[in-house]
């Protein structure tokens, strides 16, 4: 008998299971993290998702949200909380993307209706280029009108906010993992560049005070084409 194709829920469950396994491997090689991992709720939640084979329902989303937003404990669950927060932010971003797509699809429907209504009567069918040009002009008008609507601007803003939030959780997670391996983080780099920028300003202010037209590093004669 032929094997039944996997549903999207099954595929998601498999992905979650693989994700769990990969994170378990990462944790195994990092001193200290393995213990935190083994004490965590993450495998339980992920395994449950895989067993239920129903994808992410409200119940699971709620559980993840509680996990991500619950009280912080000093010695355990830190990386798990961050992982959950990132996962939660991702699901919220997907929800906002769905809302955005729903809004963004409306002008296409309106354009189609207008184009159909404007179609020439009789036998004289236009060439596809003429027809496409007419369709394109209508669609452009409808898309621009929609972009300027309050509703579109609102869903776009919410999608942007959700995307930024997801990015922040990714950064938080990556910095935690970097910390486990002693790798400098993005925050470290930002702090260094901030110090350098401020230092440069101070040096230049001093230099300008003593020699207003003092040139900086200069190279002459390099020809650029």
């Amino acid at each position, binding site marked *: 008998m032929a094997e039944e194709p996997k549903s999207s829920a099954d595929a998601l469950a498999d992905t979650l299971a693989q994700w769990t396994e990969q994170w378990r491997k990462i944790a195994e090689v990092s001193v200290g993290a393995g213990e935190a991992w083994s004490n965590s709720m993450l495998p339980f939640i992920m395994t449950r998702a895989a067993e239920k084979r129903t994808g992410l329902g409200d119940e699971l989303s709620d559980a993840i949200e509680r996990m991500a937003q619950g009280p912080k404990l000093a010695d355990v669950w830190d990386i798990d909380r961050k992982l959950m927060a990132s996962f939660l932010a991702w699901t919220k971003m997907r929800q906002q993307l769905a809302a955005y797509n729903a809004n963004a699809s409306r002008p296409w429907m309106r354009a189609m209706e207008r184009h159909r209504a404007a179609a020439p009567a009789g036998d004289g069918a236009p060439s596809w280029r003429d027809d496409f040009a007419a369709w394109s002009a209508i669609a452009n008008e409808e898309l621009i009108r929609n972009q300027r609507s309050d509703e579109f601007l609102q869903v776009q803003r919410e999608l942007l906010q959700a995307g930024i939030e997801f990015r922040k959780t990714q950064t938080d997670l990556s910095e935690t993992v970097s910390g486990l391996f002693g790798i400098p983080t993005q925050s470290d780099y930002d702090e260094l560049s901030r110090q350098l920028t401020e230092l440069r300003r101070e040096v230049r202010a001093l230099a300008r005070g003593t020699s207003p037209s003092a*040139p900086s590093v200069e190279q002459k004669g*390099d020809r*650029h084409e």
Partner: protein
Amino acid sequence: MSEENLAARYAREFADTTAKMSKAAEIFAKTKDADIDVGATPKHLVMRRDKVELYRYEPIAERKAQTPVLLAYGLIGRYTMADLQPDRSLVRSLLAEGLDLWLVDWGRPGRAERWLTMDDYVDDYIHAAVERVCRETGHERVTLLGICEGGVFTTCYAALHPDKVKNLVLTITPIDFHADSDDPAAHHGFLNVWTRSLDGADVDDLVEAFGVLPGEFMSSVFSMMTPMRSLTKYNIDLIDVVDDEAKWKNFLRMEKWLADRPHHPGEAAKQWLKDLYQENQLVNGKFVLSGRTVDLRAITAPTLNVFALDDHIIPPTCSKALGPLIGTSDYTEFPLPGGHVGLFVSSKSQGRLSKSISEWLAARD
């Protein structure tokens, strides 16, 4: 039209399009990125300050105006738009008009430039460039030629350092960031509308998350402003020009310029989006750089304000607002047909733009 004739026409159109697509694939495979040169007008490096470089263009005609002209582009996109190809280059046209042309190139800012502010760009980089140009040429003042955001930088510089600016030339420069509401064209000013739909905190969060205003992000916003053009440029427009090598290369040069969109330094982006686009501080007399309020009335240099009548990114009303706000009576407006980019790259505007600038400058040299 009979069904038979209609079917024959569809078959012919399909065959024509297929043949063009086939030719497009062939030409695309033969073209190398190195063949598509932008910003190619010869120039030499005079000064480097961090990632910012000051260049002087090689003269190609007898000098007609003595005052050096310093060109400053914005931080969204690169100066190569003004020097896209030999026959459509504002840079080359101005050189042909006998101007002594200099360029301040911001390079490609990244996360390392996160903390740079507009204060740094105006009061440090431009100021250092102006001083250097003066030192090299023996002049005490320069002409500033600002493009788009670079026009805002040069406007601020002219207000804060009026003794260093002989003439101010602005092209497609926003001054009143809320004047888009006075522009009746529906496709104008989406950037203004979009920015005002955000909170200041959204901008802060964006910069906090990415460290910069990502170039790709701004590209997507610009693509939205011409939605159907963005959706059809590779599958319709490209096929249309594939028979003509000159047009095909023009297309690819524009693509190269569009692809070269550096990140906007984070703190400067906050000023650009919050202080100017959202709060309109420049016309409200509240914009502060290096601890000094930018007072547009302090601009005493003769000013030429060039704008594009169909500019969907910087609506003409946003540019025209400058006139009554500055402190010089020698103020000239020069509207040109076309759009934001077309002003610099369209064949129609080439001669008119450079000639209007050079003649205006010659009268004030």
